[in-house]
């Protein structure tokens, strides 16, 4: 039963990913992206990374998606534009992408078969991640703060429009 639920979640994730690529309306594609991110969070939880699941929902769905929706709303003529294309336009990219996917799948098979089959072991990761963030990755942690700072400054400077001048 729980197996079935996990497979359903994975199937829903794949469906949402296709919809992100194929839906003509941009805001509907954003909703499909929300579905993708949410189901990814569910898969993280299944894999035992509960902190990452919560963080994914909080930062991605709560932060990044809000920024994307704001960006869509800032460009209103984009929303009513339905982008109805010829089906032929999708043919060549899909072909290339599926060939690429087949190659990737082959590489995955090679790399994943190294791992012996084992029962998935789940453990409490919150404290371990905290330890890793201030232990071996402490410098990276500080770099992230600098990246965040300069990302903030850059985004503010760019997004400020000419109304001030």
């Amino acid at each position, binding site marked *: 039963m729980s197996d079935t639920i996990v497979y359903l979640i994975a199937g829903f994730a794949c469906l949402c990913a296709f919809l992100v690529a194929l839906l003509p309306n941009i805001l509907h594609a954003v909703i499909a992206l929300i579905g993708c991110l949410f189901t990814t969070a569910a898969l993280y*939880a299944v894999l035992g990374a509960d902190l990452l699941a919560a963080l994914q929902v909080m930062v991605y769905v709560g932060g990044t998606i809000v920024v994307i929706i704001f960006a869509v709303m800032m460009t209103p003529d984009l929303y009513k534009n339905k982008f109805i294309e010829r089906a032929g336009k999708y043919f060549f990219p899909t072909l290339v992408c599926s060939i690429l996917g087949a190659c990737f799948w082959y590489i995955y098979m090679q790399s994943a078969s190294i791992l012996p089959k084992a029962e998935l072991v789940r453990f409490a990761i919150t404290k371990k991640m905290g330890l890793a963030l201030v232990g071996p990755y402490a410098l990276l942690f500080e770099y992230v703060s600098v990246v965040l700072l300069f990302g903030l400054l850059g985004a503010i400077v760019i997004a400020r429009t000419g109304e*001030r001048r």
Partner: protein
Amino acid sequence: MLQQFGNAFAFIFVAAIIPVLALTVGRFFRPDYPLSTKKIPYECGELPVGSAYVMFNHRFYLVAIIFLVFDVEVALMFPVMSIFSDYLGQSFGLKILIVSLVFLFTLFLGLVYAWLSGDLEWFMERERDSRVRKKTVTRGEA
């Protein structure tokens, strides 16, 4: 642990089912007299003027950006803070303290910048505009 997440997932599932159920059950009871006037967006009784999808203030987007950065910061501090009380009085605890203080300070600089550059203001445009114009004018005269 997975069971607990399953429980939480059940909560989300039931919460998503409730509106669907309420609207579906209501369909059998509620009247349905569609009229073309009922389908007009409400604009205080007048006919709506223009599109509702107007471009709005860029301030909202700036707020979203600043929020995103601080959201990431809060989210990153949670796992780090959760181990702090385990290492009180040890050298590793001091390291945690210093690392998190530097982290908080760096991001506080971002807030200070946004504050000083006036991006946290809302309706002060006109005043600052006039001030800026005055400055440029004087510079032009000089």
